[in-house]
């Protein structure tokens, strides 16, 4: 029993080192809804990240090759990114190696109506929901 406890303590002691590169990235909101009247979402994205280890980190998105922002010797950060959105895209974090994505979050754009008018026809059922 004592051996098992000692082994468990050893494993837990090792975990922080193994998770040194672990990155938590959250983005809100994650869904943008468009239709023919509103083909573009004017969104303000709150991006929050946290790492287990201090270091050099950069936030990227699909809109530019250059990072949105970089942090030096930080283990957490946040920013607000205002932009017009038409298509699904991603935010991701990198460390010193810009090619290695530590965490990635996708923002989905959902087009709710269709150019095909038949998809909007009513079939006279009260339970006919959009």
């Amino acid at each position, binding site marked *: 029993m004592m051996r098992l406890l000692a082994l468990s303590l050893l494993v837990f002691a090792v975990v922080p080192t193994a998770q040194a590169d672990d990155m938590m990235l959250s983005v809100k909101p994650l*869904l943008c*809804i468009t239709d023919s009247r509103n083909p573009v*979402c004017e969104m303000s994205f709150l991006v929050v990240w946290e790492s287990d280890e201090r270091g050099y980190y950069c936030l990227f998105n699909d809109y530019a090759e250059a990072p949105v922002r970089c942090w030096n010797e930080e283990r957490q950060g946040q920013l607000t990114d205002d932009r017009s959105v038409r298509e699904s895209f991603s935010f991701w974090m990198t460390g010193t190696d810009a090619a290695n994505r530590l965490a990635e979050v996708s923002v989905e754009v959902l087009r709710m109506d269709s150019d095909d*008018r038949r998809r909007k026809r009513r079939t006279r059922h*009260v339970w006919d*929901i*959009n």
Partner: protein
Amino acid sequence: MTRATTWLAMLAFLAQPCLAAEAPVEATNSNWRLGAALGYGIRSNPLVQSDDIPIVVDLDIAWFGERWFFDNGDLGLTFADNDTLTASVIARVNSDRVFFGKTETRYVNLDLAGGPLAETVEFKPPDRDYAIELGVETLAGGRWGALQLSAFHDVSGTHGGYELYANYSFGWRRQRLYIEPSLGLSYKSADLNDYYWGVTPDEAGLVAFDYEADAGINWHARFMVGYQLDKRWAVSLVTEYERLNDEAAASPIVESDSVLGWFAGLSYRFGR
């Protein structure tokens, strides 16, 4: 019912090669619209001695090809589609029949006008058949809303009548929230109205007197609120009020001049 079944079988047979000739059919293909809603709702039944129609699960099964489409039981062939309108020939099942499947047999000592009977008698509202109807539907839409106009005629020899239908809806969206009120009316010919809501001399008796319904106009209002939870899940609330035409409402087998329906539930859209 035999005629109606024959028509359904014929339509299914005729549609088969056309559907096969259209775009590939896959659950993930955008031609499909597949969804399911789970919740609770009721559609009131205007007939005497009848139960309301409960709604617990709603399936949305539709397929839209370039010309052919299937939309929850309606089979259509689109012959015009331009910037102004979309027009299709459609075969469908008449919806008035749905109320007649929820009637009950009871022993009564009053007639349907409220007069006392000399003895207790068994009574059940008369049954009606489904009708297969063929018609033309025109859809138009834009920033001003959506308009649906249609004209359908019975082709199954069930009621021999026709219906003219118009519906206007306007959708308003604020990101995840969607609100859509709509308003419409339908003209039902004398043959259609009389078949479903009339009482023939053969059906009349001590409880129900014979009644012949003339043509009339139903009108309806509908209100829908939807909230998109994520890409596939949404919460929806729908309510609809339909006022029966005076000729139908005056029938001895009708106890309410309107139909009220509502449904609240969680819906899921496949393949998004």
